[in-house]
């Protein structure tokens, strides 16, 4: 089971954090600090896995963003890499050529997509089409909010 998913920039700025288990705020901060530090100092072309305490850390860099997961011991690292990739594809599909700014300004959408894809640390939907469909339907219910927020402009 995945314990958490973090997205952070090359500068170590957190862009998204999802905790699939309840952690206290202190633990969260500690994990974020330790894991980002560990990942950011990794030289390029080294492997994407790290051991941190009892967790396996799997990370991958897409453009300026690091996608980083904490796994339990029995989990499959390669599968997780594929999972991260699928998430990036989903973001790409939703935002259309996604970039870091999309995630910064629409961070709640990034969360909603993630929620449709992974729940409680387990994959719930592997089909890109189904995720897109449920996102679309849920968004259409949210039209009023969209009006209120006046569509993102940046």
């Amino acid at each position: 089971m995945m314990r958490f998913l973090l997205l952070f920039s090359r500068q170590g700025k957190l862009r998204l954090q999802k905790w699939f288990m309840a952690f206290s705020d202190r633990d969260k901060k500690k994990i974020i600090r330790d894991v980002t530090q560990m990942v950011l100092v990794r030289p390029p072309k080294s492997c994407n896995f790290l051991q941190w305490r009892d967790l396996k850390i799997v990370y991958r860099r897409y453009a300026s963003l690091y996608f980083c997961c904490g796994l339990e011991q029995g989990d499959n690292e390669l599968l997780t890499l594929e999972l991260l990739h699928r998430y990036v594809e989903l973001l790409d599909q939703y935002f259309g050529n996604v970039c870091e700014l999309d995630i910064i300004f629409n961070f709640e959408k990034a969360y909603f997509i993630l929620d449709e894809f992974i729940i409680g640390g387990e994959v719930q939907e592997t089909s890109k089409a189904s995720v897109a469909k449920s996102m679309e339907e849920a968004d259409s219910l949210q039209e009023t909010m969209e009006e209120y927020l006046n569509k993102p402009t940046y």
Partner: protein
Amino acid sequence: MALKIVKGSIDRMFDKNLQDLVRGIRNHKEDEAKYISTCIDEIKQELKQDNIAVKANAVCKLTYLQMLGYDVSWAAFNIVEVMSSSKFTYKRIGYLAASQCFHEGTDVIMLTTNQIRKDLSSPNQYDTGVALTGLSCFVTPDLARDLANDIMTLMSHTKPYIRKKAVLIMYKVFLKYPESLRPAFPRLKEKLEDPDPGVQSAAVNVICELARRNPKNYLSLAPLFFKLMTSSTNNWVLIKIIKLFGALTPLEPRLGKKLIEPLTNLIHSTSAMSLLYECVNTVIAVLISLSSGMPNHSASIQLCVQKLRILIEDSDQNLKYLGLLAMSKILKTHPKSVQSHKDLILQCLDDKDESIRLRALDLLYGMVSKKNLMEIVKKLMLHVDKAEGTTYRDELLTKIIDICSQSNFQYITNFEWYISILVELTRLEGTRHGHLIASQMLDVAIRVKAIRGFAVAQMATLLDNAHLLTGNTQRNGICEVLYAAAWICGEFSEHLEDPMQTLEAMLRPKVATLPGHIQAVYVQNAAKLFATVLRKHDGETESQAAQETSQLLIDRLPLFVQSANLEVQERASCILQLVKYIQKLQQKNVEVAEEVTALFAGELNPVAPKAQKKVPIPEGLDLDAWINEPPSGSESEDEKPKAVFAKEEPKHSRSRHTEVDEKELARRREVRKQEQASNPFYIKASPSSQKVYDAPGVEHIPVVQIDLSVPLKVPGMPMSDQYLKLEEERRQKEKAERKKKEKKKKREKRGKERKADSGPESEEDITPAHQVDIVTEEMPENALPSDDDDKDPNDPHKALDIDLDKYVPHCRHLQFIHVLHIVMCRNEFFSKTEIYDFRRIQKKMLCSIETRLNQLSWFPVQKSSKHKKKKQKKEKEEKEKKKKKRHHHHHQHHGDAGGEDSVQNGTVEEEEPLPVSQSHSVSLKREVKVYDIQGNHQDESKVVVSVIFENKSDSFLKAMEFNVLDSLNSKLQRPEGAGAHDSLTVPFQLPPGVSNEARFVFSVQSIVMPQKLKGTLTFIVKSDESSTHEKLDFKLHFTCTSYLITTPCYSDAYAKLLESGDLKGSSLRLEGINMPFHHLLARICFHHHFSVVERIDSCASMYSRSIQGHHVCLLVKTSDQTVSIDAKCDEPSLLGNVLDEIKQTFSKC
């Protein structure tokens, strides 16, 4: 109203939305904190408004700020408000915020239960969806308990979108509320065959996770999963299934055999690396589980190792990493196949990537042998010198120590070399592992006697050498080494060449900069050295040197007396006074050396790390029991069961236990004497602990005395290298000698087969350089080896370790069913087997029973095991046959851990319903049977007792015969023609881990007195090697209460009955009962099978009827902690006994 809306929308125009906030933060890079604090103020204003849209906007911004690391817990209530909005727009924001901010400690979660329940049952699937998603993040035990049923219902929702979410969330619910696993499991199983592949894969995911906690429950699903595996093409699902099989195979080797083929096929065919990797992992797991059984699976191992080699050689660093990781799993069981790839692994040590180097290091651990240890460590030492970054260097350091110290220093042939390696490691600066080196030094010096002289010399140099003292001692963990150095020099000071010099080094002013605990050791060992110096100069007429030493101490110690550390201060002042006194004596020319030496006489023996834990708790010692009667004021409902047990327990156990203790003590004394006689210096490990340290060849490594006493100092070469050279030379020499000998032999036995002596040196050929006498660590006598040590009591998944096949009484019957446990231990298994805490079994059972009670509104219990179904059926039949049925309950347990005489088996404690056992009966899992006896009392004179036999041992039990010693009153009903003392054959056999139920009919004549029947169960224990006859004694206890049947009675009939005058009265007063009246009544009903006829305020009438038709009426009144019971019955002695039993029930709570 309209105005308000307009006003609201105008307000909103000035609000910042999320985008504004983000942009603002980006524009205020230099004063971000200040900008955000103004934003938070604005948000606080917004939250105060009534408009939900404004609130939702504010909460959305807060969620963003939370991600940036700001505390937003103060807004928890506002988040709940937004969550409860009826509009999906806001609800979605609210749940998102909640899932990001809430955790178990958030108190407002309590308020959300009903809202979440409402959302879960919403007709809009997206409402349900967000609620489920949110729940997956912040579910608490309370929420899990309250909502488990709702989520379970959603598992059968019409929309697959909801079903798959519900299935996945169930796993979270199980974690928080493990009791829900049992009822939910059948439905979860159903979902494995859901028409929607998403739901199916969700169910696979959940079961895979569950199976990793307690695989046993899911073994029955193996065929289904096998089918899924061979039919599925979805790699996501396939990986999970294969992973699941990896968890199942250790339990069922046959499954493994079946899996090998499809898995190897997959390995050959798949192009997906993740799948390949999972397959290899599972094949490894299968092979590990088979390794004992099947010899011809080397092909599969070869395949795995080959595939892994390909992965390791791949240019993709990820595959390299995983290859090494998987290799280390093979290493544990098949070290030989991995060792042949040593070259590859050593190569990985030079990889650029630290993660890969670390993995390669892990593998090295298993690759060392006596032959290559020095070489490998040398290589690692080079890495230590080169390594950048302290983490990797620390890792290397720990690995070096791990590798060398593994299995009791098994691979070390030359301890002088090892000590020099340790000394070299002390040159590492900034390491955190000083204490590790220190403990190794201590360990070696204490346990390897022959090395002490050398070690002391090295340690003296360390103490003399100032480099460890320099630098910041706070951060520099290496100074810990001085702790060991000082202690070794002090304790084994007789080996010191110049104790005076060392003493001087230990009392330098700079020592005062060391951490307190090290200084304390310095001071203490300075005293030891002082004693040594005195002894050296003992008998000299001009004891100038001795007096100088005293003076040195008197000069230097005051520095330590002023220490801020109390420990240092205390020791220093103590020793200072001592030395002053000695100085006085010296001046009077009194011989003091002997007395001072006597202060430190005797040798300290190493004690095993777990020794304290393993000291067996003396029988009869129950730390949870009350010593005095508990004050009645503090009683509470839930404490009651404990007390019930505690009070009755001692009656049976004490006398027996003391007897055992005396015998045991005598035996121990004897053993100790013998040991001391045979070895004046060491108390060797007791027999039971020897097993723990039973590493062959360690205790007495063959002795070859080669003189290497003074190591040559080769300039420009680190010490350990010399040893490497010397060792090689030594081996060469030995080899040459051996060759000579062999040649001689050959010459002698000319004509016989010629041996090839050019082959590689085998492991056995290498003889250690020293006479190594490794002292095993001391363990307490009678220590109990156990596997429990490694279990983490805080593991969140531990609770999921529920045995779904285990019998749990049906909830509706629960109030009647009582359970009898007889737990048996057999002495001969004592040393071999694991301790099994009896209390744990009972608590577990009680938990499940209590839960059942709480869950009466839930669905019926699902019976999952075969014999359970059988039992249910039996019960049904029984019901049809007999109109009145009654389960009677005894809670008994029996423990016998000591003594050779099996007669002691006969004592069985029994107590009232639902107790928590406090007795300290330690029993053994291997040979424990738990019996559930449910007395079925019906008819005038017949009683049916159902007994559940459970075989907890590893052996097969057969030919079980059940026998009870009949009393005049109660008789076991035997088939016609059988003698009065014949046993009844139990109509089944018990494989390990299986339970089954048998019923026995008793005839009872008089029911007015309680009865105890002694019984014996004989059986044959069949193990691989042998089969033995065993017997287990037990007692059946029929209380008078047990002859009563809960019978409803109407108040008019009750009045008539009382008026009739046939009944004789009796009464009972209970003082100090501090419980609500309805609890009191419930307790009488529950424990004594009464029913309430009428209740008015604090007064109630109750009724029950015996199996022989006696009426028992009670009038219970309460006032001020005093309960008076007026009772009437047509049989006075029955009534007396029932009242006694009631009294007992309440006196125990």
